[in-house]
């Protein structure tokens, strides 16, 4: 390392070989009030969002939280090819990240903050590490994995149009091909049958075990929407410790004309909710 002054933030590898995770540690700038593990969005959405995650981690560290960011396997600088990764590997990776944060900062009080599909992963991981994870916050939750997968496939159809002048395989045909063993490519990422099954099974509103503890779901309103959507309200009606919020955050997880480096609404809501948890 050629650093003239010590690094405050620390990049590390957790594990090795096919288990290796790349992680980034942001220690609290003052006496720690809690520990956050961040779960990133899926595939190219992760890359577009990356700087927003970095900024959130730095602001949370300034606000007194230890923060661990990490790349799930198949993505970023962690092990495995994307096509080898599954939803299950992502949940396992999150559990390992939680364990690493616990060890690093001697805490049993982790909060998971997840974005889009990473939020779904966080919600499931929380149920498997209930004694270590105190709460979960999700930015722009994806309630229906099947529907989300369909959105991913739209990009494949756009590529078909660009290269063949027409769309020869629509969503259902693409899903059938995937289930028959074909790897269907979206923006350079190969979608496998395991990934499809894993994502399609992530139906947050229908899983009784989720959000039984403190949780925050921040929804991005569509059109004129000025209150949380019906599915979220129904979900919250049976989860007394689930809090809902609405933030008109620009879609920094996909290409826009803006350079997104901060999600002001998500950040403010999350830090305020965290403050409520820790006081």
């Amino acid at each position, binding site marked *: *390392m050629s650093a003239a002054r010590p690094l405050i933030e620390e990049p590390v590898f957790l594990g090795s070989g096919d288990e290796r995770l790349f992680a980034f540690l942001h220690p609290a700038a003052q006496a720690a009030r809690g520990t956050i593990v961040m779960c990133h969005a899926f595939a190219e959405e992760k890359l577009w969002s990356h700087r927003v995650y970095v900024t959130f981690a730095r602001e949370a560290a300034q606000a007194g939280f230890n923060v661990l960011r990490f790349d799930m396997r198949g993505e970023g600088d962690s092990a495995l090819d994307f096509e080898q990764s599954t939803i299950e590997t992502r949940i396992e990776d999150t559990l390992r990240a939680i364990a690493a944060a616990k060890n690093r900062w001697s805490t049993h009080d982790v909060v998971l903050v997840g974005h889009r599909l990473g939020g779904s992963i966080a919600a499931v991981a929380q149920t498997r590490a209930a004694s270590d994870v105190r709460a979960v916050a999700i930015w722009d939750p994806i309630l229906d994995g099947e529907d989300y997968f369909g959105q991913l496939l739209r990009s494949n159809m756009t590529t078909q149009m660009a*290269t063949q002048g027409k769309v020869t395989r629509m969503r259902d045909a693409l899903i059938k091909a995937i289930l028959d063993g074909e790897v269907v490519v979206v923006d*350079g990422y190969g979608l496998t049958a395991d990934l499809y099954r894993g994502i399609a099974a992530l139906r947050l509103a229908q899983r009784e075990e989720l959000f039984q503890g403190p949780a925050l779901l921040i929804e991005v309103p569509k059109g004129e929407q000025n209150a949380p959507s019906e599915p979220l309200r129904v979900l919250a009606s049976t989860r007394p410790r689930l809090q809902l919020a609405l933030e008109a955050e620009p879609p920094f997880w996909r290409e826009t004309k803006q350079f997104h480096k901060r999600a002001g609404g998500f950040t403010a809501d999350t830090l305020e909710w965290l403050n409520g948890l820790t006081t």
Partner: protein
Amino acid sequence: MSEQIVSLRNSAGHALHCMFELPPPGAPKTDLGCVLLSPGVKMRVAPHRLYRKLAAEFLERGIAVMRVDFHGLGDSEGDLPEQQLDQLYRQVQLGRHVDDARTALRWLQREHGLKRFVIGGLCGGALTGLLASEVDESVVALYAIGIPVVLDASGQHESQNMTQGQLRDMRGTYLSKLMNPSAWLRLLSFKSDFRSILRSLFPKLGAGAKGKTVSDTRVPPPESATAANLNPKYAPAMFGLLQRNRSALLIFSGADRLQFEYQEKFVAPWRAALEKFASLLTVEVIPQANHVLGDPAWMAQARVLTGRWLDERFK
């Protein structure tokens, strides 16, 4: 996997977080290294981890690879002031991150004794590599995928700077919509981009202003007028590279406007001058490919072209 996290500090003191990988045991020994630079805002892995896939071609030939996060991007320190992507790209195109690239070169020289470098990457990474070659003699070759030759955020309507290739493609798209009712509805409700439609149908109408003469002794006089939005740093840097007897591999994607821009805004005005450097300049086009090579077949072609070029130049 022998990747190593390397944190460097650039001249301004920002920590740059990079990934360094040594060739596998048994690979040929060489003093040549490769530096792949952040493309746009997509950090050191690049879209769909493109750089990790391409790095394999270098590593198996014994060439160590460093993937670099620029300051203000990826995991690195620093804050970039731009709110708009085109403004940010413009600063990259003007050389904002050359110092970051040199920081990586110096570390590789000092810590690993590497003496010569292939530098570049995708898009802004490629251009930063080219600009770094002007100020660092250790750069012996440019490795460029989809290198931009124009300056973004020129303040003109997009259609004014379109190439003939882009206009031809656009004309084809509009003509194919003639029988499409929703396209007519869009047109009649004034939601269409009329300037672009007119420009594509009448290519000489509303063309952008011609560029200023490039006053750099390295750049031969152009045979025809240059484009108004040609990056003033591009031609001097590219001719400078070639005049120093450095080689370059330029890979373009067939469905990418950058290919048309390279041909029409750089090659056309300097066609004869460039012919003198034909032995140094390798230009390849991957048909139908998009800017990020987002299909395994395109990716495979890029790997083959990369491997072939490395074998021809450095074996």
